[in-house]
């Protein structure tokens, strides 16, 4: 059985479809890269997978006993209110919330997990700082660390490298690849950075006028890519 099964789904908002007849499956251990132009519905797809936006038609089902609290998520934009008082550490720890049930306080393991991810994202120096006073790239790393805290089996990343410097970008790709290969965590990543994304992904989903879903190798031969390439180079 698959981790995610999407069958003939139409995605969109308030009855207006953006993506139609979408079908794909995600198996445990996959590294799925979602590509497509701006506005083609990639973020919408991710929100639909997460149950934040209902599909207009069809369904996206979870299988293999995947529970919502085994999912980590990095949103493309996090509309945090301007004055919100919260430190980096408080935010990263809140990623552990989904495994806590009714337990009121973070355990030693939860805290250690948060510190580990703070370290992974190179945020040690910033851990006590106020989130809203960080730079865009630093904020992105905080949200990534929070996503890693929430991840059990599946990690969804919406343009994770947007706003990161080249060094952190390279490290992040390596980290995600490690999570996928060593820890067996299934990855679904939206990216515009085709080269790097395709270096690690095992499957590709192209959203847009041409829908494509298949292995990376098949994608490299396909028409969808040539369409996108034209746009990228133009």
């Amino acid at each position, binding site marked *: 059985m698959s981790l995610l099964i999407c069958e003939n789904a139409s995605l969109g908002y308030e009855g207006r479809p953006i993506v139609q007849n979408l079908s794909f499956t995600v198996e445990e251990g996959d590294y799925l890269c979602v590509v497509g132009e701006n506005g083609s519905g990639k973020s919408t797809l991710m929100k639909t997978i997460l149950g934040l936006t209902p599909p207009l038609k069809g369904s996206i089902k979870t299988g293999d006993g995947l*529970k919502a609290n085994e999912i980590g998520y990095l949103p493309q934009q996090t509309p945090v209110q301007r004055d919100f008082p919260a430190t980096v550490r408080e935010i990263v720890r809140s990623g552990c919330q989904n495994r806590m049930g009714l337990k009121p306080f973070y355990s030693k393991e939860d805290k250690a997990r948060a510190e580990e991810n703070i370290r992974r994202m190179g945020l040690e120096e910033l851990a006590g700082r106020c989130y809203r006073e960080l730079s865009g790239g630093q904020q992105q790393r905080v949200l990534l660390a929070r996503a890693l805290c929430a991840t059990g089996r599946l990690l969804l990343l919406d343009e994770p490298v947007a706003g990161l410097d080249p060094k952190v970008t390279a490290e992040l790709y390596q980290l995600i690849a490690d999570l996928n290969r060593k820890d067996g965590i299934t990855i679904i990543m939206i990216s515009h950075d085709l080269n790097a994304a395709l270096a690690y992904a095992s499957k590709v989903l192209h959203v847009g006028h041409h829908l494509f879903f298949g292995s990376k190798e098949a994608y490299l031969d396909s028409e969808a890519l040539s369409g996108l390439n034209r746009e990228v180079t133009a």
Partner: protein
Amino acid sequence: MNGIFDKLAASLEFPFVRYALIVGTLIALCSSLFGVTLVLKRFSFIGDGLSHVAFGAMAIAMILRLTNEMPLVLVLTIISAVLLLRTGQNTKIRGDAAVAMVSVGALALGYLLMNLFPTSSNLSGDVCSTLFGAFSILTLSQTEVWLSVALSLLVVGLFVFFYNKIFAVTFDENFSRATGVNAPGYNLLIAVIVAVIIVLAMNLVGSLLISALIIFPALSAMRVYKSFLSVTICAAVVSVICAVLGMLIAIVADTPVGSTIVAVNIAAFLSFALAGKLKG
């Protein structure tokens, strides 16, 4: 100076004044705890709306000549909180519009009812004390005092128990929902607790000034502190100090309790704003 202390000492001889101080302090404590959540999550509109609903409910309780008005007001306000939260999630009627309708409607109907079925010769006095608190904290029945104490402690307990979840849901509701946290459940919990706080706070400051009591301490704390924990603790401390000071001043200077507390809160806010500026 001595006169002031004599007057204070004389007032504190009365048990109802001592009760009022204890209850007032507890109410100030628990109302400040949810201040950050109310300021930052768009719950503030619910807070405003509910305080008007509580006014309408109080009018009903008054014309029914209940000795203990609180239980009825509590039930009606909690029901409204749940309903408002529901409509807030419904995209057809915008949440804000629904709240505006309910709150203004409750205010109008409450005043109308009090006029149609006057319970005392001093109608405007009754209305004024419900809106601005006047002396209602001093006129609580024994049952209401114990109910207030129990509810305040319950609110504080729930806040501590759910502190980390309240933070997560307030900071980023979508992330919480997406990763399997029962965000709608916690929203409901927050709305119900806010309803309880509003009914409690109405006794202290009256329905028009409730928002001030809830929001001012949080806003003050946010001028200076940057983490959720420190803001929460600071807001609680500020709120308690302002409430105690306000009540004592009100006793000595014979001013209305509610507006005096709010005035002290405003002074605190100004000092914190200044401190925040200086700190940079």
